[in-house]
């Protein structure tokens, strides 16, 4: 990979990506700090102010929901949860996907064929429906959420990693390592994986918003984060119920979710263009 300074220069020249990066940073900062500086609690019920519109009361900047909970704090706490789930689930899909893809690409030949065929078959299955059915059947804890999102999203990572590994394996330094008698496990962990991190980081940045979208979808269906905790998806689904009478309960978390996902996507695209990574 060419020098990172050239990539950094290309990234800075992409105004949309820089703006998106700033928006993401601002939203993350707001989500972390906002609930601390606001006197309201996310799960405190204010019975004097049930479903109050924003700006009507100075105590609740973005209004309150049906139970009189402060929407500003609740939305920001929901953003924290959504970001956290996005990060952890992305990490899980990376660990799965990198190990599988690196082994397949390094082994090559028949092993590679079989492993890729398995991926092909699994990707043809209606995995999302399985996740929904399993989620409904076996309770809806966060662990199950991470596992099910990871199980759906590791396939693409594995495919990209395998493609990268195939080209890395042909490099002379791998030949040298084999000639020096290094065992395959050592070659994979010391030589292959560090060299495919660049494209993988780019892919990970792009998959965070997708995974957050999937999480909010599951939470919207009531299969994700459960009360009293809430992710942005949970908040949107509550907002839909009160849409006509109290539109801000929908608009506040909905706009923040949309803004965050768009910004993350533009940021990831910019990173990919700057590092010149081809998607597999």
């Amino acid at each position, binding site marked *: 990979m060419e020098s990172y300074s050239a990539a950094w220069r290309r990234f800075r020249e992409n105004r949309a990506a820089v703006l998106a990066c700033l928006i993401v940073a601002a939203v993350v900062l707001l989500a972390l700090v906002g609930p601390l500086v606001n006197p309201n609690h996310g799960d405190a019920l204010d019975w004097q102010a049930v479903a109050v519109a924003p700006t009507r009361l100075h105590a609740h900047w973005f209004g309150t929901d049906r139970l009189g909970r402060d929407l500003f704090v609740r939305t920001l706490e929901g953003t924290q949860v959504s970001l956290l789930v996005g990060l952890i689930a992305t990490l899980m899909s990376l660990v799965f996907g990198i190990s599988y893809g690196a082994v397949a690409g390094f082994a090559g030949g028949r092993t590679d064929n079989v492993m890729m065929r398995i991926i092909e*078959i699994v990707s043809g299955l209606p995995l999302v429906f*399985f996740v*929904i*059915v399993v989620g409904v059947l076996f309770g809806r804890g966060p662990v199950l959420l991470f596992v099910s999102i990871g199980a759906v999203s590791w396939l693409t990572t594995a495919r990209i990693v395998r493609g990268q590994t195939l080209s890395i394996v042909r490099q002379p330094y791998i030949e040298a390592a084999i000639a020096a008698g290094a065992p395959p496990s050592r070659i994979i962990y010391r030589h292959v994986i560090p060299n495919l991190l660049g494209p993988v980081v780019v892919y990970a940045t792009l998959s965070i918003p997708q995974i957050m979208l999937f999480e909010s979808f599951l939470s919207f269906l009531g*299969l994700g984060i459960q009360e009293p905790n809430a992710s942005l998806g949970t908040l949107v689904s509550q907002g839909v119920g009160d849409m*006509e009478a109290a539109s801000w309960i929908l608009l506040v978390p909905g706009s923040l979710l949309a803004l965050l*996902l*768009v910004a993350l996507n533009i940021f990831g695209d910019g990173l990919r263009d700057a590092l010149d990574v081809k998607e597999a």
Partner: protein
Amino acid sequence: MLRYFLSRLAAAIPTLFLIVTATFFLMRAAPGGPFDQDQALPPEIYANLQRAYGLDRPVWQQYGRYLNNLLHGDFGPSFRYKDFTVTELIAQGFPVTLELGVIAMLLALCIGIPLGVFAALNHNGGLDHLTMVLAVSGIAVPSFVLLPFLGLVFGVHLHWLPVAGWEDGAARYLVLPVIALSLPPLAYIARLTRGSMLEVLAMDYIRTARAKGVPLRQLIMRHALKPALIPVASFLVPAVAAVMTGSLVVESIAGLPGIGRYLVQGALNRDYTLVLGMVILYSTLLIGMGLAVDLLYAWLDPRLRTA
């Protein structure tokens, strides 16, 4: 190519069998049953119900019986919707879901592809940037956020269109759900078409055709479009899957009488046969779409026909 297609077709049957088996045992492994209610039924009635639906037998016997019925085209009775068979429930709702999904997919293709082509021809121009903005927002904004927002603007405030409802499928009830459902695949298709069109337009044979003076329209329609559509073809299966899952939430927000509600509700109620029927239906549709795409590849890429 024909051999490849036939091998894929042959692989579809064991795949479906595996899906049915996995779902069947997953449902049975879950705690609770279809007749568990907040107020427990008298034991005699409970036992009678269990016997009537064959739930008192060992699980492997139930499995065998289910498979046997399935081979005869019988999806069994629903456990919760009394007096309805699974086939009847799906036959009632499926036309709505199908109509919604097919229109959304057609819209995504008929707008997404031309948009991508024009954006590529207008590379780095105004239309190109506009398309990319639309593409990013369409990919990023979930349909369950988009649909209520559209409903707020066009339904609650402007009163142009109904927010939710069905009324025997009057067209205006479909407008907002179809837009919300088609925008994500539309955006993705536009982006894919634009990217691959740019690559194809840079190829030698296109330069040759241009040098010969082939008019632009003919250049696109006869030379550039088909190879540029290969990535779009490989996106069709994920697109159909996305429309199916999107339909689950869109139908519930817009109050459409489709089959979307049966998946989550059925699993909640432990309505074993209904969930199995839904999973079989969705899997068959997806696998069938995959096979259709294989044929489409052969049409788009002549090199594959001999391989």
